[in-house]
């Protein structure tokens, strides 16, 4: 057969031999996409929305973030473990309602204790059903979500349970360093106004979880388990315990979050965690946690949550309606996951390429125009890079 010029194909248009100028920047952009997104939102809103970039509103944004943060952290942990927990919203509601309902009889401490224990119990139930009864977590938590919500509805008879006193609420909402918003210099306000116990609790939870996941063997074990349960099992990890533990943490954190919110708002209602699930899922995914398990960071989740809250808050600073907020958050989520998919696709396309071949290709691309590539050298003639590493 005669060596004819190869028929041009779609991919031939851009031979990878050419160095890609933006490769580095693009990789970084992907790596830090959450931070990028957050910055963009703050920039755009700061420019467009009145009252957005003010200390008061900043603390407002953080307050909104801290509402869902503990539950989101728990959700991240469960997702890293390769499972799904739809019951976080209900768990929040449960925490809030129980704290309010029990505080008159048990006092704040007692009420908190019970609420958190119930959260833990819910988590354990989920975990046991998933790990021991081996039911798909989507199904288990969908069921418990419904059960817990309605149980709470019965407990508070469809109403809302108010706090008997504002003391705790005030404490939780007041900045630790309480300056007079009018008098104090803005710089200080920027630093202090958002430092309310309520936010600090959420931040503490987040920090603790971050350390646990990144720096403790148990945390890494969780990643291993989510990434490849079989490998984890063969490495002597007790897979079931990790699954149960993940769910327990998630239930517990969600309950804590709900309890703090209710205490801060001085009221526990069925609506407390009603709309949280969707926000949380969106934030966790935007934060770079993978649905396949084994991958994700709570910091990413937190930043994503801040970004989403800032987006909503900024839009309502602009007087935008609920519909605009829905569209905007939907768009952000959609774009981010499309971006993810695009990068995954690129990685898989390049996976397993041989360095020596690419170098050779570059050498050729440099030496002669791609059109003539086909006719270069008889197939059997030794070409450059032939005697490279024994494998790619």
């Amino acid at each position, binding site marked *: 057969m005669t060596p004819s010029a190869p028929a041009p194909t779609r*991919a031939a248009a851009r031979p990878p031999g050419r160095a890609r100028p933006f490769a580095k920047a693009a990789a970084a952009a992907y790596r830090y996409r959450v931070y990028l997104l957050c910055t963009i939102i703050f920039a755009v809103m700061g420019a467009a929305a009145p009252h957005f970039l003010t200390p008061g509103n900043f603390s407002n944004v953080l307050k909104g973030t801290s509402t869902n943060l503990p539950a989101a952290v728990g959700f991240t942990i469960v997702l890293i473990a390769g499972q799904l927990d739809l019951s976080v919203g209900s768990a929040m509601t449960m925490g809030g309602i129980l704290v309010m309902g029990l505080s008159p009889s048990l006092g704040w401490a007692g009420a908190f204790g019970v609420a958190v224990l119930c959260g833990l119990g819910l988590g354990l139930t989920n975990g046991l059903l998933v790990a021991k009864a081996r039911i798909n977590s989507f199904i288990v938590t969908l069921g418990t979500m419904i059960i817990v919500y309605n149980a709470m509805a019965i407990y508070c008879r469809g109403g809302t349970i108010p706090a008997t006193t504002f003391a705790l609420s005030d404490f939780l909402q007041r900045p630790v360093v309480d300056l007079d918003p009018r008098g104090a210099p803005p710089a200080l306000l920027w630093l202090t106004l958002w430092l309310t116990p309520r936010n600090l609790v959420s931040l503490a939870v987040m920090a603790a979880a971050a350390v646990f996941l990144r720096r403790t063997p148990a945390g890494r074990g969780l*990643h*291993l388990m989510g*990434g490849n349960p079989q*490998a984890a099992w*063969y490495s002597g990890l007790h897979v079931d315990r990790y699954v149960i533990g993940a769910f327990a943490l998630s239930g517990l954190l969600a309950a804590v979050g709900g309890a703090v919110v209710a205490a801060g708002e001085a009221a526990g209602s069925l609506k407390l965690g009603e709309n949280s699930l969707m926000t949380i899922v969106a934030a966790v995914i935007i934060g770079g946690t993978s649905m396949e398990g084994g991958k994700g960071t709570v910091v990413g989740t937190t930043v994503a949550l801040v970004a989403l809250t800032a987006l909503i808050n900024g839009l309502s600073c602009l007087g935008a309606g609920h519909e605009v907020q829905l569209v905007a958050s939907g768009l952000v989520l959609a774009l981010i996951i499309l971006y993810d998919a695009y990068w995954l696709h690129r990685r898989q396309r390049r996976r397993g390429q041989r360095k020596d071949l690419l170098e050779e290709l570059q050498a050729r691309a440099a030496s002669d125009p791609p059109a003539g590539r*086909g006719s270069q050298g008889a197939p*059997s003639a030794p070409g450059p890079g032939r005697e490279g590493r024994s494998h790619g």
Partner: protein
Amino acid sequence: MEDIGVALRMVGVSKRYPGTLAVDDVNFDVRAGEVHALIGENGAGKSTLMMVLAGAFDDYTGQVCLGGTAVGLHSPAAAKAAGIQMIHQELSLAAPLSIAENVLAGRLPRRAGLLDRRRMLSETRRHLARVGLELDPQTPVEEISLHEAQLVEIAKALANAPCILVMDEPTSALSRAEVQRLFEIIRRLRRQGLAVVYISHHLSEVLQIADRVTVLRDGRKVATEPVAAVTAAQLVERMVGRSVSGLCARRKTAPGAEKLVVEHLSRYGFFHDVSFTVRAGEVLGIGGLSGSGRSELARSLCGIDPVDAGRVLLDGRPVRPGSYGAAIRAGLGYLTEDRKTQGLALRMSVAENVLSAVIPRHCRHGVYSPRRGGGLLARLIDRLSIQPPGPGRIVSALSGGNQQKALLAKWLAADPQVLLLDEPTRGVDVGAKVVIHQAVAELADAGRSVVLISSDLPELVALSDRIVIMRQGHLIGQLDPAEASEASVLLAANGEGKLVPA
């Protein structure tokens, strides 16, 4: 007594799955400082027996003694504690995690309760060095290549400083050089008094590395004897329970017209500028080391993976690149090397799997009735003697060999003009091998073209009419048919043979 120096002794061990008795009252022992090979056809119970050792089951019967003391291996943790390490056939690495965390999985170094990253990395580097890998321990496993991953797997096993090391097909993805390096490691460990159990289908490897060999058949132990005293032929005979006259007769056929023409096909970074032709009724063998780009070539050739340059002609008509469906309609077919995750839907029945490639053929006015394929199905099951013959069987219930036959049956059903076989007998017992070889031969005799990719050199040499060699992503030429032999293929694959242009 004779337990002196015996590191591991299994007495009357049995393991029952619902339906089958996978391991039946087996006695097995390994001395410290010896490599004991365990061979047998697929479904003979090798892997099951070793999984008992790995602590995979809590319901096996019989007794396991380590250094003379009985132990219960009812969980992997227990097995690890007892100093037993296993290198699994299917890799047990977590893709998203770093190499370091995989190597040290379950025993990450800690300081003050927290993870000690620096030590983790340094330790990992040491372990990787032992298997000759220079990779950054922080690279996620999902970003390294398959055979690198297998070496990491080995490093992981060695990192646990086992006193008993079980290797289940450790070389399936390794190149010759890597295999030799692995053997060096094993020999060193043996000198250090480690007891090694080595499971493999490659009799050559077994004869090369093992001291004693135990043959299993149908879950029972057939024989144990020193390697020095046996030949490959004898082992094969014991494995299949009958004497096998030479694997497959060398075929002689007059090739017909040019069927498949590949021109300057490239997928950048995988293989470059590959050209060859296949004639009707011809079996073209592609030799080469693992990672030489043979599978990638085959996949791109029939449109599963993208093509960056060049083209493929079937009967003179170009095949649309990047569309496997179109390629199949044009008359191509690709039998994948990865039976379990790419070849067969293990949850579905033999019938559904075999007929899945020809669904459109059994549709009339939109109505799909698999029953129309019944005759074809029966013929194939009979011709390939798939055991057990029930078409309703769930595939995962079949032994590896029969699964492979089912996979082949699927493509025989599709009856493509050109069939690309990628490692058609990987991890398959001798009996199944013979059947598959015959099927391939018949296929060629029926005027179909076959492209055979195989690391099993005897098979490659025996079946192929012509053999071309790939090396590092290039098709570097063709063996002179006159002197095609296992040795010449091997030399050529390592870049030292003399070749004629393809």
